[in-house]
């Protein structure tokens, strides 16, 4: 579904990613892990299009998207959440969700239908009671849930999640993981960047490990937790 080859990114002489090959299959659950600063968020941004890769190519469903702008990628079915939530602060939660409904799905806001769809999405993440509030009135946690609802509004086929579980209690995290499994059951491929090992190991079918901008391992959770390279990156030697 997504095939990225030779992704490389430098920020002012500092190398964030070097020559990373990254592939996501249709309907796959993929975990992307690695220590802080290993380039996971940069890779997500390059897939979503908010950062351009210096070298290499990206193909999505057989189409070259290396130079395609982020809003077009969103329309092609790539959705994402941000590690630090980016709410549209002048709008209510409901309106935040309506934006992708209008711009990605092409729904019009003439009748109440669009609002109903938005409300339903908020309900999925447990925020329907706060639909008329503004982002300022929400906790960081709720903002992250709103990000998820917003990403889902675009009916993505590939969903990029940047630490959606951070800061959740294990019960809450389980709920979100359950929700994600449901989405995946409907055929959405999910790339999860996560630090909470228990969750990411349990959720993913396949795991890719980045360290210092280089892909050091790839495999199923079992293989990864026994991979000496990974242990070295995480625990040291």
């Amino acid at each position, binding site marked *: 579904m997504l095939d990225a080859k030779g992704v490389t990114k430098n920020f002012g002489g500092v190398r964030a990613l070097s020559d990373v090959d990254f592939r996501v299959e249709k309907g796959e659950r993929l975990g992307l892990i690695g220590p*802080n600063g290993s380039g996971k968020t940069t890779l997500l941004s390059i897939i979503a299009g908010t950062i351009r890769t210096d070298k290499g190519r990206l193909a999505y469903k057989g189409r070259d998207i290396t130079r395609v702008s982020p809003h077009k990628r969103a329309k092609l079915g790539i959705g994402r959440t941000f590690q630090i939530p980016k709410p549209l602060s002048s709008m209510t939660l409901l309106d935040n969700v309506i934006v992708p409904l209008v711009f990605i799905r092409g729904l019009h806001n003439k009748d109440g239908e669009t609002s109903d769809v938005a409300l339903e999405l908020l309900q999925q993440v447990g925020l329907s009671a706060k639909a008329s509030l503004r982002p300022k009135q*929400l*906790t*960081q946690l709720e903002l992250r849930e709103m990000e998820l609802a917003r990403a889902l509004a675009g009916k993505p086929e590939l969903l990029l999640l940047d630490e959606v579980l951070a*800061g959740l209690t294990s019960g809450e995290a389980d709920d979100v993981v359950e929700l994600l499994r449901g989405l995946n059951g409907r055929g959405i491929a999910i790339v999860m960047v996560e*630090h909470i*090992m228990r969750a990411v190991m349990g959720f993913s079918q396949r795991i890719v490990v980045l360290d210092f901008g280089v892909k050091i391992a790839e495999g199923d959770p079992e293989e990864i937790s026994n991979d000496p390279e990974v242990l070295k990156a995480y625990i*040291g030697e």
Partner: protein
Amino acid sequence: MASNQSVLSIENLQAGYGGVRVLHGVSMTVKERSVTVLLGTNGNGKSTLLKCLAGLVTPDAGSAKLSDDGAGVELAGMHPYEIVEAGVSLVPDGRRLFPLLTVEENLLMGAFKKSARKRHKENLKSMGELFPVLRERKGQLAGTLSGGEQQMLAIARALMSNPKLLLIDEPSLGLAPIVITKLMSTIKELRDKYGLTILMTEQNLPQAAKIADWGYIMVHGKIVFAGDAQQIHDNELVRRYYLVG
């Protein structure tokens, strides 16, 4: 070796970002002239704890007292620049160097506080001795250094303020093993030769265990294990905390 006098005592510290609680009541102590290491994987709150101590994050509750020859200074709620003045210096996560300043200019930024300005020449000299590579590259822009050199510069910059307590956030991050070994021995030297007290966070357990006097393991914002150097060297235990969590 470490004395029994504690330099820093943290009690029931709680903190978070906008409603997400990250630290759920952390208590620990850091003894004088010791290397204390705080272990745990990413996203468990280690960095947040150091940020609280440096004033970058304001704790919601609890206290962090710096003992200053008997009189205690409460760090919780102080501004970062006041904390530097009080003698605590942080080597932040991601190093946070000034990439467009030269190596020497970065070091001199570290000596900004008044008491350190007076001594900046001699401090510059001793940093050159401690990190010869920085002396060689003093005119180079910090952004062009290698990862290991950047980490050394970040530590040296923090030392330019003559801190009593040095906080280091993930020094080994993204460094090659051989560089980590070198770095750890430098940190050890800071304790042994210069009598510095050091609190650092680390994921790299074996490397950290080599030089640590005391260790704590943090999982989900709580201290789940505390012990001395020998105890934390138990790799199996830590593995359980790390990958199974």
